[in-house]
């Protein structure tokens, strides 16, 4: 004998602990007289026990995965670096369209020197670009493995 779809759904939900209490009594009563549904409940209970025993087939982040205070500061430093880069672009722009454009070798000429105290990356204001790139590429290089059983 096979019960209807709705009853089987409720039996499964009961075995999984997902059936609202208001519906549980009726399903329990049905189970007492229905071997097929009782077998279904038993199958779901065994399945859940097997799931717990097997453990989740977790992905593994790898040993190199970590979140350090250094990294947590990275967004701010990235912003500082972007700001510094924008300032550099602006300085270059100002230099190139300086008026009048100096003629190399002309009397009193020569390229207008960058104003002292102009663009520079202040010590400690952010990582050197190569460090930043290394850090970002390092994040992507962390291997991902499928792990063994976990519980």
């Amino acid at each position, binding site marked *: 004998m096979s019960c209807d779809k709705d009853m089987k759904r409720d039996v499964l939900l009961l075995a999984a602990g997902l059936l609202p209490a208001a519906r549980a009594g009726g399903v329990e009563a049905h189970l007492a007289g229905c071997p097929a549904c009782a077998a279904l409940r038993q199958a779901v209970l065994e399945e859940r026990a097997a799931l*717990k025993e097997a453990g989740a087939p977790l992905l593994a982040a790898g040993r190199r995965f970590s979140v350090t205070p250094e990294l947590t500061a990275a967004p701010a430093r990235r912003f500082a670096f972007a700001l510094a880069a924008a300032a550099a672009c602006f300085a270059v722009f100002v230099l190139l369209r300086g008026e009048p454009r100096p003629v190399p070798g002309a009397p009193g000429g020569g390229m207008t020197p960058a104003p002292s105290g102009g663009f520079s990356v202040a010590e400690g204001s952010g990582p050197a670009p190569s460090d930043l790139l290394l850090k970002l590429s390092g994040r992507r290089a962390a291997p991902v493995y499928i792990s063994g059983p976990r519980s």
Partner: protein
Amino acid sequence: MQEASDEQLIKAAAAGETAALGTLVERYKDRVLTFMAWHFSLPPEEALDMTQEVFLAVWKSAGTFRGESLFRTWLFSVARNVGLGYFRHYVAKKAESAGLLFGDEEFENIPDGAAGLLEGLEAEERRALVRGAVQALPDKLKAALLLREWEGLAYEEIASVLQVPVGTVRSRLHNAYARLLKSLGEKDL
């Protein structure tokens, strides 16, 4: 530090103890990675980047954990928000089409139950069989199963983490169990 509860660790992290955060990362990195990969259907490398973002968000918002729920319920909520923020910004359509945002789902048909499907198998063989069957499930069913069976969240908590109606959690879990029953039944054991 290793013995401390999750809740103690997150409070310590909020107070600036980086070692406490490190312990939480060790405890949960694989579980969060797997959740991100399954719930958002991401390839492992992308899920790994997102996982890093999740722990950065945890670090930054540790002070907002008030202890009204279990730490892991809060953690997976943060993970879900980080993931959804990413999807909202970049591929909102994908999230919607993957059914991550809304909606109950149909309950699938259940095969006739037959107890003892896994009897007579060696423990290792049984584990491999079950894990293989889980791997074959659709991602969003796996994510719900992860939170229910291995993280031990109540279905109301799962609904809160995933921001879906309780009925959706019920139907996803129902479908996961039904598919697993079918899959294990077809092994002809």
